[in-house]
């Protein structure tokens, strides 16, 4: 059943582009965004002049070290065009295409360029320092928290509640880094074993070095068009079937940490719009957000692609491999391709676009694909953003 949502124009994805993801790139944030945007337009056979509106995203300015960072790289394509920056922390990467969707769906723009960029390398001694200031300045910051602490606690809670062991969770990292071997932009592709993950440097128990995605520079871009425009541009448009976003409460410790309810609400919103009633059967390929390996399982459950606490078991049965029943992170995800925050989320949308066009080359999943989804998560660990695409 589709809800009665008034959408003036059906929206298609017609092109996508990606820079290399690397620890430190020579390019400035503007140049990274430009490179991704140019590739995306080239792939659609368009030029900057064909773009009506621009939506861009970047996570905190403090990584790039440029305040108004969105505006700073806006002139990539946004010169004298309606241009807006959207921001929901780590969820930005999927929120940018959501915002681009409503630009086109509303009839305001016939074509919209979504660009997401992140350059984390300028912040020294380590970009982790930027995360020190997301905490409550009175009750939490005096303890000197870092980001990995709370993920470690969430991971521990998930392990406890679902009986997932570190060995099982490590298989996500093994799978994604292996998938990334086929990705030309990948930063952290590797053939590793569960033992390698378990024996890697212990950071904040139960999180080891190889449980976490790397620090990255990079940019991604996706071109959206209304149905009429899309039919002119390409014979194989990929349609935006549904979008969803939800924000949970501010305090991460007020939630049941073992289940990402905010992702679930966002997913339900997107499924409703897409007319998807049984996502675990109807979604053919997914890119759940995987900055940490347990997070992929966590999000698979939130997205209702598995029952709560069922994802570790399915993972053991190779359910989520490229040749599996429901391939997840066929790109290699954040763990394998890299994690330039906002760009990483949009990279996932680009991957679903390529999968649904059967253009993913060696990364193409084995099964036939009709519906795919990409998801990101962020802010104070409280926002879920979901986009469902179909071909």
């Amino acid at each position, binding site marked *: 059943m589709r809800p009665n949502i008034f959408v003036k124009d059906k929206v298609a994805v017609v092109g996508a582009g990606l820079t290399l993801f690397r620890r430190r790139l020579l390019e400035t944030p*503007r140049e990274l965004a*430009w490179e991704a945007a140019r590739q995306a337009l080239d792939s659609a056979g368009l030029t900057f002049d064909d773009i009506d509106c621009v939506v861009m995203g970047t996570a905190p300015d403090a990584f790039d070290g440029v305040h108004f960072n969105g505006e700073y790289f806006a002139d990539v394509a946004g010169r004298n065009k309606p241009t807006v920056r959207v921001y929901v922390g780590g969820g930005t990467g999927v929120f940018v295409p959501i915002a681009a969707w409503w630009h086109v769906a509303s009839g305001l723009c016939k074509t919209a360029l979504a660009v997401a960029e992140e350059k984390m390398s300028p912040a020294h001694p380590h970009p982790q320092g930027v995360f020190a*200031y997301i905490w409550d300045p009175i009750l939490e910051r005096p303890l000197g928290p870092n980001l990995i602490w709370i993920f470690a606690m969430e991971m521990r809670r998930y392990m406890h509640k679902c009986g997932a062991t570190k060995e099982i969770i490590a298989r996500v990292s093994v799978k994604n880094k292996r998938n990334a071997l086929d990705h030309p932009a990948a930063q952290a592709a590797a053939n590793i074993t569960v033992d390698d993950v378990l024996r890697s440097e212990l950071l904040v128990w139960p999180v080891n070095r190889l449980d976490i995605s790397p620090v990255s520079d990079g940019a991604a871009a996706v071109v959206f068009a209304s149905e009429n425009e899309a039919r002119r541009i390409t014979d194989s448009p990929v349609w935006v079937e549904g979008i969803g976003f939800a924000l949970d409460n501010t305090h991460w410790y007020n939630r049941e940490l073992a289940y990402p309810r905010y992702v679930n609400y966002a997913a339900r919103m997107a499924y409703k719009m897409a007319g998807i009633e049984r996502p675990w059967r109807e979604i053919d390929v997914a890119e759940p957000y995987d900055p940490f390996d347990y997070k992929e399982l966590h999000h698979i459950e939130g997205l209702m692609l598995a029952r709560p606490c069922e994802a570790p078991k399915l993972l053991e049965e190779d359910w989520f491999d490229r040749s599996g029943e429901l391939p997840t992170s066929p790109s290699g995800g954040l763990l394998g391709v890299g994690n330039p925050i906002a760009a990483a989320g949009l990279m996932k949308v680009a991957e679903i676009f390529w999968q649904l066009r059967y253009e993913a080359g060696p990364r193409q999943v084995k099964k036939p694909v009709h519906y795919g989804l990409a998801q990101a998560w962020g802010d104070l660990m409280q926002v879920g953003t979901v986009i469902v695409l179909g071909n």
Partner: protein
Amino acid sequence: MAWKRWRIEEVIHYPGSQEVEKYVYTPGIHGLELAKALREGRVLGMKCPDGVYVPPKTYCPDGSPGELVEVRGPWRVVTYTLVHQDIYGNPLPEPEALALIRPDDADYGGLIHRVRAESIYIGMEVKPRWKPPKQRSGQITDIEYFEPA
């Protein structure tokens, strides 16, 4: 809401700062070429379909990739301001002139820089005063200031 004029010593407060130790910026593709040129006492611009832009920024405003060209001037003041106070509000001993300076062989942009002159006016011809070659490090401050030509 209760309000009085508090002294900072009288209240419990939570000092904080929001800085990383430092930032290390990369120059970018054409930025790197510009840095090399500055070390050699040259300034680069970028040739775009609609004209020459200074400084070069890898892509043109229309989105096409630009082509690096050297700009030689003569340089002219497009607009300027006179700074009388520093950022803390302390008066400067001498007002300092800052100007947007564009070379005649460029169509858009220019450099923002200090000008040292008895007087300054729009359209005034100026030239860069370079640091000695050994002291140059590929930064905009390799030009100490602009002076009357």
